[in-house]
């Protein structure tokens, strides 16, 4: 049963900022992630702040310099169906399309997806189920059931959208510490990941997300138990683009393996070097790009108990990075 809470509706941006970052405030956007957690009592809200459809937080538009600005309250369905996103940043549109189910995407927002709780089979359970185990870091306790000796929460961050934003070098415009700030997506995710592994309130309001203009292409892949509705077991995105100096750039990211998406910078650098002719593929080097990418993910990944699969099968899924890197390398030939 949901604990009693105070409900306030913010009608102006000022109000939204104030309430959302108040000591007990929790933003209710689409509610598709928050409400189930409130029902399970894995989370409690003292003050639930409903954000009205404020113009500052809505819509997808292109700024004068070509930046695509997405309001935090844009729904995942809007992103999936946006002609602009599908043309300019298809990996983001597709990542949004792969989240949950049509009904959920109609409600779920971009800001909410980024702010989603890190998930774990011990945390995302009913009050009754959890009543037989100790409280964990995320629920105000002092243990992580995924790794009882771990000093921190090991739950994973399963946002599909965040992984795609990472390869787009997106910026998150937030209200934080009583001022407007712009955080690179990776920094934003790291901060969220860290605080979200505790019961400390984040006191932040996402207002919009900026995607700088890109001359290039991008791809997103998602692995799950079912293609119909699941959180990812693994996801990855790759972007190939022309840099200001005319060279070809590559960004590669993977998600659902730790507390935030990880940028596969070593692999991306190696790919850039190959594409731009800085080095040639050495025939005596047995390590392929795909293997390099898998190693990079393996190094960063925190393997936890997840539904339906074993760590071995999860590692197997990293092989799909090869499909992604092959595609990017093939694309590069046409690009140069």
């Amino acid at each position, binding site marked *: 049963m949901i604990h009693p809470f105070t409900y306030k509706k913010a009608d102006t941006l000022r109000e939204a900022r104030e309430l959302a970052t108040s000591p007990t405030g929790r933003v209710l956007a689409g509610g598709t992630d928050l409400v189930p957690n409130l029902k399970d009592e894995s989370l409690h809200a003292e003050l639930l702040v409903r954000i009205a459809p404020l113009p500052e937080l809505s819509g997808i538009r292109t700024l004068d310099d070509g930046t695509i600005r997405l309001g935090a309250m844009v729904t995942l369905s809007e992103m999936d169906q946006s002609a602009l996103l599908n043309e300019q940043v298809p990996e983001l549109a597709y990542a949004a399309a792969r989240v949950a189910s049509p009904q959920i995407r109609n409600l779920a927002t971009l800001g909410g997806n980024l702010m989603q709780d890190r998930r774990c089979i011990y945390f*995302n359970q009913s009050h009754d189920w959890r009543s037989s185990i100790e409280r964990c870091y995320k629920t105000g306790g002092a243990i992580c059931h995924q790794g009882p000796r771990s000093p921190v929460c090991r739950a994973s961050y399963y946002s599909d959208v965040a992984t795609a934003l990472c390869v787009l070098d997106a910026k998150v415009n937030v209200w934080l510490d009583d001022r407007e700030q712009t955080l690179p997506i990776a920094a934003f995710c790291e901060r969220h990941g860290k605080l979200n592994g505790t019961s400390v309130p984040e006191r932040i309001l996402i207002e919009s997300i900026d995607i700088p203009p890109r001359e290039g292409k991008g791809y997103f892949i998602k*692995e799950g138990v079912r293609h119909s509705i699941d959180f990812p077991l693994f996801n990855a995105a790759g972007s190939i683009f022309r840099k200001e100096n005319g060279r070809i750039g590559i960004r590669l990211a993977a998600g659902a393996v730790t507390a935030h998406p990880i940028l596969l910078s070593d692999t991306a650098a190696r790919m850039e070097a190959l594409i731009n002719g800085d080095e040639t593929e050495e025939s005596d080097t047995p390590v392929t790009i795909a293997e390099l990418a898998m190693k990079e993910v393996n190094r960063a990944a925190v393997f936890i108990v997840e539904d339906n699969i074993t760590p071995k099968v999860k590692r197997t899924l990293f092989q799909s990075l090869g499909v992604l890197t092959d595609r990017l390398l093939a694309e590069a030939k046409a690009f140069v």
Partner: protein
Amino acid sequence: MKRDQTKEKPTVTVPQRSNDEIVVDFESDERDMFEVARSVGQSFPRTDALMKTMGLAEYTDDLHFRDLAYGMILRSPHSKADVRLVDDREARAVPGFLGLLTPDDVPDRLYNCSGNPPSALIIPDERILTWHPKCLGDRILAVVAETPEACEAALRALHVEYDVQEPVMDVRKALAEDAPQVQPERSENNLMYHMHLAEGDVEKGFAEADHIFEETFYTQPIHQLYLEPTSCVCHYRQDGKITVWSPSQTLFQERRILAELFDRSESDIRIIKPAMGGGFGARQQLHNQHIGVLLSKMIYRPVKILNRREEDITASSTRHATTCTIKIGVMDDGSIKAVSIRNLLNGGPYITHTPTVGAAAGKKFQYHTEHYSYDGISVYTNSLTAGAMRGYGNIQVVFGREILLDRIARALNLDPVETRLKYHLQVGDHFPAADYDILSCGIEDCVKKAERIRATIDAERPPRDDDEVREAWGIAFCCHSSGPSNRDGMSSAVVMANDDGSVVLSIGSADIGQGSETVMAQIAAETLGIPFENVEVRAADTAATPYDTGTFASGQTFVCGNAVTIACRRMRDNLRDGLARFYDTDASEITDDGQRFAVHTEEGIIFLDFIEAVGKIAFGMKGMVVIGQGSYKALGSPPPFAVCYARARYDKRTDQVAITDIIEVVDVGQPINPEQVKAQVHGGVATGFGYAMIEDIEYNRRAKKTQSVNLLHYKAPLMNDVPRIYADIAEGVKDPAGPFGAKSVGELSAVPVAPAVANAVARASETEIAAMPICRVLPPAAYTADRRDIRFDDTSLQGGAR
């Protein structure tokens, strides 16, 4: 569903037809013109389709009651514990609190919740509430309150202490010498039941065999996952009469269990089954009705208990996990010399159905073998209680059997289909260790049709084998039973005519969503010779409809269908007697060809169809009330057969597997309603596909209990995850024992899917499969047919395209 126009009888208008009697010549051929449209073999839409589609059908939770109160159960959060209620004062102070039941307040009596009829295998070992929960979700206490919220608040306010104990979850550990006893009152060594069946001498057979193949297969526990949550409304009236509304497959058995638990006469208890959202075996047992009755008795008001999904998954019943060792001795030509099957079943802490589930596969080995032995060994553990589920013990053994036969075919370089067919049992044969003969078998037509479908698919999309992808087909055969294979099945029917010739058919059999009421109406219409629309079915109310063993073992069409046929034939006999009185003649002067009565008079013959005959005599001066009744005791359980082909797609780059197509052709004898049969096959394929690939009730070692307790963690395929399904029916098969030649389809359709999938995966990926779900070995390729996915191609399309 559109009726096949070509099969429909043309409507015949007879010019001279009026209220006057039609007198025709003996030899006239025109008699056929009066034949009504046939009902059997026609795909009528279901009688409940409109109300369900409009959301107007009333399920248990939709029923309205004055003074309704709510009940809720405190369930164990531990797999094994001893419980003490320290303090209930705070709970009693919760606004709306009406009452609390503890294990000390309920009859201290053991029972077995199984909805099977009483037998030596249905051993009682369960209590209504217990201080010593033996599995997650076990019932400890119950409260009754004005609202569900007050129930929850009261349960939360109870101060309960648990002395948590180490559970034993694994069958082999449970059978170890030092294992803790799960049910000390019943078993010293945790052995629940051992069923041994044999024919010939297996050791001799293995010594003579050219090759011996052996493997131990593991099948996981899964849940039935009906859509409608388990619920009941129980009303204990001041006069001691009890009424229960609940989704029930076996209401007459539940009435018996309640009567025994409460020392009541069966006539004091009435059980009514409203519209029902599935059962798949899980409602073939008593669930919370006893608690509902006891809570109602405290306040003499109706009490509703509605399970949350978590309660349904943890505290109804699961499919049995099995560890099944199969050994097959074969000759070079693939003929089978000897078979031994040793099947260990994890029953959980209560017996329920387990011994019969353990026995069910024993007499279903459908290939010739001289020497055969089967051991079904069921074991007590602290896993979730296992019970009945579609496929009932057969599905687990067929999984291993059909995989091993496939390996044999590959090892001996034999065609897997031809070899199975060559050594398949035929009409007149008997299953090893069984004492009844097969009376009908359409397996060859199943194969023919399946091969034709496969050829069409392969012509459209030739199987790939290139650098990236390898595609392959896997096949499996199976059979099942029509009604309980121990011939427990019994049913009855009463059919009553109205004076306009329409009838009301009253049956105790429960339609649990599979459409049996529609099928019974078709059988009645066909037997009575009246249009389908003229039959109204009233079913599943123990005070108003006649006895039926229950809806299980896929027995409704066969068992209840036979009862309906008998009742309808009797009605025609009674009608003939009535006509004899009306025409002042002897009944022997009236003949009945099943369509029309012919009254032989001196002027000629008067022909009357059913409606005309009823019109003559029903409710009139010389008339009578026309009723037919019949009961049927199953003398056999004709096996239906099925052939399943699955096509797997293996991604060589990522080791991912996808199942793209599943063909299943069933021999169900004469299909009463072909589209319903195909719908059952679609459902069965979805059940089998989820079982094979992803579904699992997973045990969590740290929490020492299952983690898959809700639809977030328990993953079953959604419509879009299911491969393309091609369902068809073998033609020209009629079982002599079935009504109009019909056999069963419900469970059958689920049984062959998992091994067909596993064989396809093994052939495509070159990875041997011996355990489910397959996603633990090879990751599923769960990407969509979205053009934005870089791996999208036309052949990767799964069932539901975007």
